């Protein structure tokens, strides 16, 4: 079985699910003849027709609101928000509405919808094609948020998202689409929502991450290993709910924790992970919890030098890792 890219995994998973379940429809800007700006739906309108692959007007609140209405009325829509930076107009329909459908009707209505959102940077996208937008979704009860880092995880988590009976936000890191390759079984499988995964076992220190950065963490871990620091790498995979048990188990074992993310740190995923560790690992910690992220600036700038300065690179991680190792 050949290796495929993460975007191929997304595409094949959607295709398989749409073949399996007629109630799945696709909605978004340019998802039809264009096949999506990242080609996630390449060939879909040809196979499934214009009724199931719907090019919408340029209006994100509409896209997500229509998906919500269709979901409540018995379909399983998959809405594509073209870039994460453009999800803000839809927040009202997602965070305000979709998250509360089941709760606000006390279970009479449900919204089995999937929202796919390409996010993240290092693609020379500048301030408005590079944003990380996970915080608000991950904060919101009623939503589920996944952020796969590998093609294998992408398939399993996307399939679970589509089959879930509640709204699931699927955050796909744009840079991983073609950069990250891996083996993906062609058979039908799903991965549980809400479970982190140890992507590399280790005993000296836990590094928690997700998305593109996870791969840089693995690179840093190899270099650290050569320096005699054995790192356990936790891939969160689901950002809501965060799998506290896996984090706590790992940190209780290693005694040290570093959290690395591409999003700016204040009030973020790394805050929550650090808080979980501070609450639950106090008696096992051998050093302060450390966080590494970009500077607190509005978004990733466009100039290649500025972009590089923004990204947490393996080099920056190694500085933190070496420091934490000696504490």
């Amino acid at each position, binding site marked *: 079985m050949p290796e495929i890219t993460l975007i191929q995994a997304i595409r094949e998973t959607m295709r398989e699910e749409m073949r399996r379940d007629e109630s799945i429809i696709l909605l978004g800007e340019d998802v039809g003849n264009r096949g999506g700006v990242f080609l996630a739906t390449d060939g879909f309108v040809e196979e499934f027709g214009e009724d199931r692959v719907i090019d919408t007007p340029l209006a994100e609140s509409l896209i997500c609101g*229509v998906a919500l209405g269709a979901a409540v*009325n018995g379909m399983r829509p998959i809405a594509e928000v073209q870039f994460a930076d453009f999800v803000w107009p839809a927040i009202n*329909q997602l965070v*305000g509405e979709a998250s509360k459908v089941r*709760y*606000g*009707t006390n279970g009479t209505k*449900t919204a089995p919808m999937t929202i796919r959102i390409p996010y993240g940077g290092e693609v020379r996208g500048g301030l408005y094609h590079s944003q990380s937008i996970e915080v608000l979704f991950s904060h919101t009860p009623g939503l589920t948020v996944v952020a796969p880092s590998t093609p294998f995880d992408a398939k399993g988590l996307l399939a679970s998202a589509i089959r879930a009976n509640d709204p699931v936000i699927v955050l796909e890191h744009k840079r991983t689409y073609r950069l990250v390759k891996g083996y993906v079984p062609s058979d039908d499988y799903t991965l549980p929502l809400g479970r982190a995964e140890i992507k590399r076992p280790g005993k000296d220190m836990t590094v928690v991450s997700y998305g593109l950065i996870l791969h840089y963490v693995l690179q840093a871990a190899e270099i650290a290993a050569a320096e005699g620091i054995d790192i356990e790498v936790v891939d969160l995979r689901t950002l809501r709910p965060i799998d506290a048990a896996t984090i706590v188990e790992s940190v209780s074992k290693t005694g040290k924790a570093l959290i690395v993310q591409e999003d700016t740190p204040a009030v973020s995923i790394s805050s929550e992970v650090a808080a979980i560790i501070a609450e639950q690992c106090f008696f096992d910690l051998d050093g302060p919890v450390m966080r590494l992220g970009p500077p607190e600036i509005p978004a990733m700038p466009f100039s290649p030098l500025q972009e590089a300065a923004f990204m947490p690179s393996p080099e920056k991680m190694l500085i933190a890792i070496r420091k934490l190792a000696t504490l």
Partner: protein
Amino acid sequence: MPASKHSPSDDSAQLADQRLVALYRTMVLSRYLDDRVWMLNRQGKAAIAASAQGHEAAQVACVEATDPSKDHYLIYYRQATAMMALGATPEEMLRGFLAKEGEPMSGARQFPYHGAHPRVDMFNFSNVIATQMPQAAGVALSDKLRGLDAVTIVSFGDGAASQGDAHESMNFAGIQKLPIIFFCENNRYAISVPIDKQMAIDRVASRAAGYGFPGVSVDGTNIQEVYAVTKVAIDRARNGDGPTLIEANVERLLPHTTDDDHTRYRSAEDIEYISQRDPVKITSAFLLSKGLLTEAEDEAIHSDAKKQVNVATATVENEPFAGVEAILENVTERTEPTR
């Protein structure tokens, strides 16, 4: 397609006499319930109430033109009368206002009228103005894709027409020729903001031209007229001819909610004027004048409504508040990790 003043011509769009009386009965019941709820608020028993007074004729007539066994109703918070026309009982409504155990729409998690009704497909997920409009387009789209013979009726106020969601949903409905009715209850106010600060045009209905479907503006105190235009729109939608925007011109007889005092922003003349446009009075006068109702029958309708509301109040007032047992349930299907 400019906004047109509808003249009922089609015979099928005429209401049978005895249905007229039945609708009037619902209007009166709703009116009594509404007065009661307002009183319960003043007694500190109901946290808040938004009144349908002034909108009753438009609401019963609209519902009458639909088929509750298959149609979808995305309501908004000022639609007590529509809800009752669709079968909500005074007890159910009162459980909403008083947050009592067994409240059917949301288990008293939400404001009155919010949630989903268990028997009819009538729902309103939130208090957020105009969000129901794209959702309604999604409901209608999924019916259309599956070839189902159902129409979606989405209601909203004149204020809601200013929201982006109103524009986006009507535009999409026009493009996709969806089986949907956009039913605007224009009472000329969004809380205190008068219509001339909400739009520079005379009729909300004229916006439909920008979306490629008909817009009709009707006197919302006239049951027959509202019924007729809605029936035409419903038939259009069922025939696959696409959406209609209906603007029912009504008055909000009371302040925005029990929290509001409309003398702060409405002139005395305006308040006097709207009392002349009370649809309960107008409908009663019409039925009496046409001989469809006698004074005695009218009185009986009123006293029956009063009795129903009294009985319901007595029943519900003594019920316990909705409890906390289920407060952690129905967040998502899976059990959420608790802290």
